[in-house]
């Protein structure tokens, strides 16, 4: 098992980091936070660099690289607190179409993604829960069409995405049975953006008010075999991607804290020369490194379609949760007052790190998942 980036992967990372340093400086992020910018220009730049096409098959115009590369990009986006539709389009919409739809549907919906013409997202969660059994939205047949009713919570970019994969279930089904998936044009949904702590993430609630979906937009008919299993695979990818975003932000917080500790002097010496500060920074380094190792392992299991992928995703997300908890707390504390000002960049990262914890399952819910897979508690 080789968990260090290859030359090619390192090159991608450095490349992405360089682009974002120029195209997504903290000043842009702050503008988005303050509602003065949308970040659209950044997305255009990403498209120009083929980032959305990275892991898509060459068949649809993609570059045919792997989920590891996507993870590297998303980690850097987290590090830069980048706004924009990358996360939802590439790590939620794309796998949803790939895993749930037919090859024809994949060609139809993913070619425009590869070309940067379409953005997308995934509407699965309800009441803040992502597990398939929590889906209550209903899909009822009408002729050859389906009609969707219900509501969805915590959908990224729902108000701006071109296409939204909506998961709903057949009437009178429950648990993991009866689930289906549909591609709905974004403008047919009612999306309500929420005011959240990290405004670069457009978190919306969605109402499904008798939305008609024609047959060719049905990725998986309610109750079709394997839908839940396929949906879980989608959730694995989305979960690992959110972990990557979180860990990217955490690594940057760690680096800023380290730099600050070297520069900031109190009592005539750098605060980083005080042993208690040193040990805490060593612990931050440790938790970031550990979480990164688990993240890369999870990304690999997905890239290589290893049977451990689901467990690895939960390990990565649980570790990312512990990581952000410690890194946000000590990172802010060790900065002192400067970290609490709007003008200093730290808070942008803190908010991205915190936001990641709540998306696609908290650390606690992934530990619950692990407790079940280890057969410590009943499934």
């Amino acid at each position, binding site marked *: 098992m080789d968990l260090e980036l290859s030359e090619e992967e390192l090159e991608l990372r450095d490349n992405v980091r360089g682009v974002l340093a120029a195209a997504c400086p903290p000043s842009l992020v702050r503008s988005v936070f303050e509602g003065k910018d949308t970040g659209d220009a950044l997305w255009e730049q990403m498209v120009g660099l083929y980032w959305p096409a990275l892991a898509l098959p060459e068949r649809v115009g993609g570059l045919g690289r792997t989920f590891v590369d996507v993870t590297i990009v998303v980690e850097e986006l987290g590090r830069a607190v980048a706004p924009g539709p990358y996360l939802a389009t590439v790590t939620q919409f794309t796998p949803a179409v790939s895993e749930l739809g037919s090859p024809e549907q994949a060609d139809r919906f993913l070619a425009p993604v590869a070309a940067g013409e379409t953005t997308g997202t995934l509407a699965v969660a309800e009441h803040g829960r992502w597990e398939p059994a929590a889906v209550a939205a209903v899909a009822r047949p009408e002729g050859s069409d389906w009609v969707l009713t219900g509501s969805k919570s915590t959908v990224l970019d729902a108000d701006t995405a071109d296409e939204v994969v909506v998961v709903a279930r057949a009437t009178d089904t429950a648990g993991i049975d009866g689930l289906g998936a549909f591609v709905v044009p974004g403008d047919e949904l009612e999306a309500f953006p929420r005011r*959240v*702590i990290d405004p670069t993430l457009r978190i919306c609630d969605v109402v499904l008010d008798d939305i008609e979906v024609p047959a060719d937009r049905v990725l998986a008919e309610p109750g079709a075999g394997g839908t839940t299993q396929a949906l879980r695979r989608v959730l694995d990818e989305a979960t690992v991607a959110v972990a990557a975003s979180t860990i990217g932000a955490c690594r940057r917080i760690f680096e800023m804290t380290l730099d600050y500790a070297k520069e900031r002097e109190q009592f005539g010496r750098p605060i980083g020369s005080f042993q208690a500060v040193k040990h805490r920074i060593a612990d931050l380094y440790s938790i970031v490194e550990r979480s990164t190792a688990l993240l890369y392992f999870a990304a690999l299991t997905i890239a290589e379609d290893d049977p451990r992928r689901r467990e690895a995703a939960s390990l990565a997300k649980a570790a990312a949760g512990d990581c952000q908890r410690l890194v946000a707390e000590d990172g802010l504390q060790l900065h002192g007052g400067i970290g609490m000002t709007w003008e200093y960049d730290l808070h942008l990262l803190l908010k991205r790190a915190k936001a990641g914890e709540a998306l696609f399952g908290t650390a606690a819910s992934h530990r619950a998942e692990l407790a079940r897979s280890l057969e410590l508690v009943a499934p």
Partner: protein
Amino acid sequence: MRLTFDDTVESFRSTFRAWLGENRPSEEEMTADPAVSSAHLPGWARRWTRRMFDDGWLVPGWPPERGGRDAAPVETLVYLEELERARVPRTTNPQGLGIVAPSIFEFGTEEQVSRYAMPILRGEKSACLGMSEPGAGSDLASLSTRATAEGDGFVVNGQKVWTSGASHADFCFLFCRTDPDAPKHKGISVLLVDMDTPGVTVRPLPHITKPEQTDLNEVFFTDAVVPAANLLGQLNNGWALAGASLAHERGMVWLGTVMELESTFDRLAAEAREILPRLPAFEQAHAADQIVRCYVDVQAAKCLGYRSFAKLARGGSAPEQALMKAFCSESHRRLHLVGSELHGDGGLDVWDARRGEQAWIEQYFNSFGGTISAGTSEIQRNIIAERVLGLPRG
């Protein structure tokens, strides 16, 4: 050890409670015109301070001429309990009343008392504390704001930062360097500087959760002229004065802190009772455990506070002060973290309209003010280790 106070203390409590019922500012007037900084005195606050002063309830332990009634420490304790219970602030300028005024009484001239301290007691003036600087946060001795003697006064140049309430304060209790050649601790003095002095400018510091509104400021001094009569105490004796000033703040500050912890916990538990039944078993138990841990912390803080008070009331020393500062501020922070996590993805929403106040996650970020200002948690641990436990300086 005992659970209850003597009857005389309880009768003191009843007296104050009755007075409070009749004289307190109403919820309506407080919410209609809230204090927006820690040196802002809205109309109701000015009237309320004056009423307390006139009737001897402002600082019960002080003599009547200073707004008190020579109350015993335990009486002050129940007085504070009653104020907290009634959710009435004792002052909207806590540093003025708690640190600046007593320091002026202790070290000031008669004129300084009548021009600066008494107006604070009568709700006529508010004060801010000019301590931290960009290069001197926890390390006060490194401050570099200069006050140069010139003619019959001082000329002040320099910059303060994190100055709470500076945009509303009438004057500043300013620590500045009056002898640049002396060893760091020995060249510092305190000046009382009117905030409308030419050359004093205030720039609000946009804040981590509310960029548009803030209590914290940068204060710039550019050739600001301060009369010699505004030097507090001895020249270059500011270091000793700083220790004494901050000591005024201690004593019973813990009580308000503990009661705030309790009311925050009550809110957390109430919300948890709504949310927990909807969670799967494992997550429910996990969240409940987090909340119970907060409860243990809050109750421990409360018991520790009362234990520390009992030691002080018997004339002993209470090493728990630094411990209470660190532990209460950290418990407060933890409560808000647990509060935000309890709400899952809903915890990301800002400005909770239902509660009419900042969301848990915003308050979590704000709560670092408690573990950073007035001596960081790290400084408090140094104090515990060195001054309380006698460990050698490193």
